[in-house]
């Protein structure tokens, strides 16, 4: 599913070159649940942006579903993001002006092939599935943090992507709500076989995944299976 080959990312700050990634290679198979860990400055956000097709590597190759994404144009990348990737952010990133339902529908608005009726049907179905069937016409600001993250997850799921990228998905939530959100995400992997990549610095979160990739100073420091003992199997 994800095939990253020796990618580097160098930022230029004036005349100074700051390497964020210095040659990273790994594979993630379809249906895997992987945590990317590392301290701030380790390059994990940069890696997340490249995997999510939000940014391009300075060198190296990145195959997503067999397609060399590193060679694509800006608008082609937008299409890949729209079709194959669902994002879940730490800050939720919901648009406050739009209703919950319209927020969840946002990726479909840029798809262009579906009728509004179909869009509404799908978003209603998914919002009910994440437990927000009663809240569809509310504004995001009227919802709790956990509920807002559920809206974000609904938005990530609406285009039936193969890959969910979650950047510190529980970072802004209390531990109880965070556990609920993790269960929701893990359930998606279990029930629908979605590939799940979670960027986190929280070992408890990482421990619930199948595999942990550790980054340090732009290089992979470790790539091992997560300790199975702490994996919790709590249903949504």
């Amino acid at each position, binding site marked *: 599913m994800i095939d990253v080959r020796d990618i580097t990312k160098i930022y230029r700050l004036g005349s100074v070159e700051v390497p964020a990634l210095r040659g990273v290679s790994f594979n993630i198979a379809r249906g895997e649940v992987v945590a990317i860990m590392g301290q701030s400055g380790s390059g994990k956000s940069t890696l997340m*942006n490249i995997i*999510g097709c*939000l*940014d391009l590597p300075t060198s190296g190759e990145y195959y997503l579903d067999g397609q060399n994404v590193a060679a694509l144009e*800006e*608008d082609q990348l*937008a*299409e890949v*993001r*729209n*079709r194959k990737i669902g*994002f879940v*952010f730490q800050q939720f*990133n919901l*648009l406050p*002006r*739009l209703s919950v339902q319209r927020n969840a529908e*946002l*990726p479909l*608005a*840029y*798809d*262009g092939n579906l009728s*509004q009726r179909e869009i509404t049907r799908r978003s209603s179905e998914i919002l009910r599935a994440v437990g927000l069937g009663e809240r569809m016409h509310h504004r995001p600001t009227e919802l709790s943090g956990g509920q807002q993250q559920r809206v974000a997850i609904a*938005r990530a799921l609406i*285009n039936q992507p193969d890959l969910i990228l979650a950047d510190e998905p529980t970072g802004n939530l209390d531990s109880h709500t965070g556990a609920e959100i993790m269960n929701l995400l893990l359930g998606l992997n279990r029930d629908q076989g979605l590939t799940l990549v979670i960027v986190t610095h929280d070992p408890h979160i990482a421990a619930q995944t199948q595999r942990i990739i550790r980054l340090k100073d732009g290089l992979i420091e470790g790539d091992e299976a997560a300790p199975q003992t702490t994996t919790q199997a709590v249903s949504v």
Partner: protein
Amino acid sequence: MKLYRLLIEALESLNANKLRSILTVLGIVIGVAAVIAMLGIGRGAQASITSRIESMGTNLVYVTPGATSQGGVQSAAGSAGTLTLDDADALAELPNVSAVASVTNSFVQVVYSSNNTRTRLMGVTPGYQEVGSLTLEDGEFISEAAQNARSLVVVLGNQVAQDLFGSTAGVVGQKVRLNGQPYKVIGVLAAKGGTGFMNQDDQVFIPLSTALYRLVGGARFRGSSVISQITIKASDAKTVDQVVQEATRLMRERHETVEGADDFTITTQQDTLDAATQVSDTLTVFLGGIAGISLLVGGIGIMNIMLTTVTERTHEIGLRKAVGAKRQDILLQFLVESMVLSLLGGLIGVALGWGASQMMGQVQILGSSAITPVVGVDSILLATFFSMAVGLFFGIYPATRAARLQPVEALRYE
């Protein structure tokens, strides 16, 4: 993104910043309203001038004296005392014409009882009623008999009758004094309208012969009385050009002049109309241009607000791009927003401008009769189209800036 969805999002976004949107729209409203009102007034003025000129009669050709030239010194046009009653008689013999002479270059004090007024004196031949399209409200116009007898009779303009008698009823048969001489009122003209020096209701008519021999006295040239204007009425609009040629040829023959050295000038009603139209066209363009500048200022207001909006919504743009928005989607989103602003302003502006020009139509300017503004469908379409173009033009730069944002950097922006 589909168009109706773009429109809904644009309206929602404008609604979220109501005051700001209203103020921005106001800039366009004022611009468009000014354009509509100014064009309306310009057109109204043109229509009123045109109808006034046409009310003086159609198919008319005017012969006036040229300037005298003594030792190379030109004096004012019309000052040469070379146009005579004999010229008028000769011109009347041309095919397709009826010609009449008049003396117009004098003013006279008209007195009735304790009332008096100063007005323009017209010494005219009987045919003047026809060429001048004059309608009588009461009594009759100057007759051949009165002309031949040099009678002391006068026909009053409507305004003059009002000024002297307070009404137009019972005026016929009364005696008034022109420069001290007693004249009998034989007719009162129907009101024609008009303003200032063009006011056709503020003049009095007496027989040309009376004017030349009894009231004004007259210079003589080549054994005939000098007059100030000959008005020729062509049989119809098609023969006007032919009449002008014939009259010019005849006058050159009689006055022994050549082209370039004529001592007379021949103009047509069309010339006057063209000149007046040109003046009012210039006026309309000038007024419209000034109004257009305020529309431009409104457009700059839109651009300013759109730039602010783009900056404020950088994070939103990042998110939209992350979930699949292409450059074109973002571009359209902001373009539609700025065009909705300007179109809204345009529509309100059209309504306001129309209302304003109707109101101005009610106001009398400097005591003259009010202009009826003409707001045409074309100026409404023009203003609406132009306001949309303003929105498009001034929206392109902010929208392009939004579309060019990189998703990663935009998402990081707080």
